[in-house]
C-alpha cells in the first residue's frame, strides 16, 4: 500500500517562514488523494504543538489547529520525536490524543518503512 510508505518529516520551526506550513500542505495533499502519509514532527518542528491560549487573537494562524485536523484526513497518528521535545523544553507537554512520542528506535523504523521521505 503506497499510502503508508510516504513519510512527511517536518523539522522546520513553525511561524518562522513557510516551510513547516508547506510540509503540512503536502501531507494534506497526499491524504486528499487517498494516500495518507505518516507525519513526523522533529527538531524545532515540535514547537508547533503547544496550544495557544483560548483567547489568543494572534494574527498568524495556529499550526496546532492544522495538526488537530489531520485525523479528519485519515492521518491517524502524528509522530513526535521524543528527544526533540526534551531539547525544546516540552518533555512534559501533554500531547493531543492523535499524537505519539517516538523514541529513536521508532524513528528508525518510520524511516525504514518509508519508500519516500519528504523533508520539510
Amino acid at each position: 500500500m503506497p499510502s503508508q510508505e510516504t513519510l512527511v518529516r517536518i523539522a522546520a520551526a513553525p511561524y518562522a517562514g513557510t516551510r513547516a506550513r508547506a510540509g503540512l500542505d503536502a501531507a494534506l495533499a497526499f491524504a486528499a488523494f487517498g494516500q495518507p502519509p505518516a507525519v513526523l514532527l522533529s527538531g524545532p518542528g515540535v514547537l508547533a504543538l503547544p496550544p495557544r491560549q483560548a483567547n489568543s487573537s494572534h494574527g498568524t494562524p495556529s499550526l496546532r489547529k492544522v495538526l488537530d485536523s489531520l485525523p479528519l484526513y485519515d492521518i491517524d497518528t502524528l509522530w513526535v520525536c521524543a528527544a526533540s521535545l526534551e531539547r525544546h523544553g516540552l518533555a512534559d507537554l501533554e500531547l493531543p490524543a492523535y499524537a505519539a512520542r517516538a523514541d529513536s528506535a521508532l524513528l528508525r523504523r518510520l524511516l525504514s518503512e518509508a519508500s519516500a521521505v519528504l523533508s520539510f
Partner: protein
Amino acid sequence: MRLHCYSADINATAFDDLRASLEAGDCVLLTGPAVALARPGHPRSDALVDAPATVFALSEDLELYGVNDTDARIARVDYAGWLELALRMRSQVAWY
C-alpha cells in the same frame, strides 16, 4: 551595555556564542522560536539566566508559540519595551 537579540534555535551553537559574549549590564531579548526558552523548566534556561545579563522575551512571540506561562526570571516585553531596551543600551547584536 548591549542589547542581544536572539532568535536562533536554543540548541544552536549561537547560544553558546551569545553566552560567551555577555557582560554585566547587557540585556538579552529572546524572539521567534527562541522564546521557547522562557517556558518554565526549559533545560537550557539556567545557562542563560545565570549569565551576567537581564533576560527578556517578546510577548508577541510568546503568544505565537503558545508559551502561556513564563519562567519568573524572564520578563515579557512588547515592542515599546523593546524600543526602551534599544534606547537604554548603547548597541544591538543580532544572533540568529
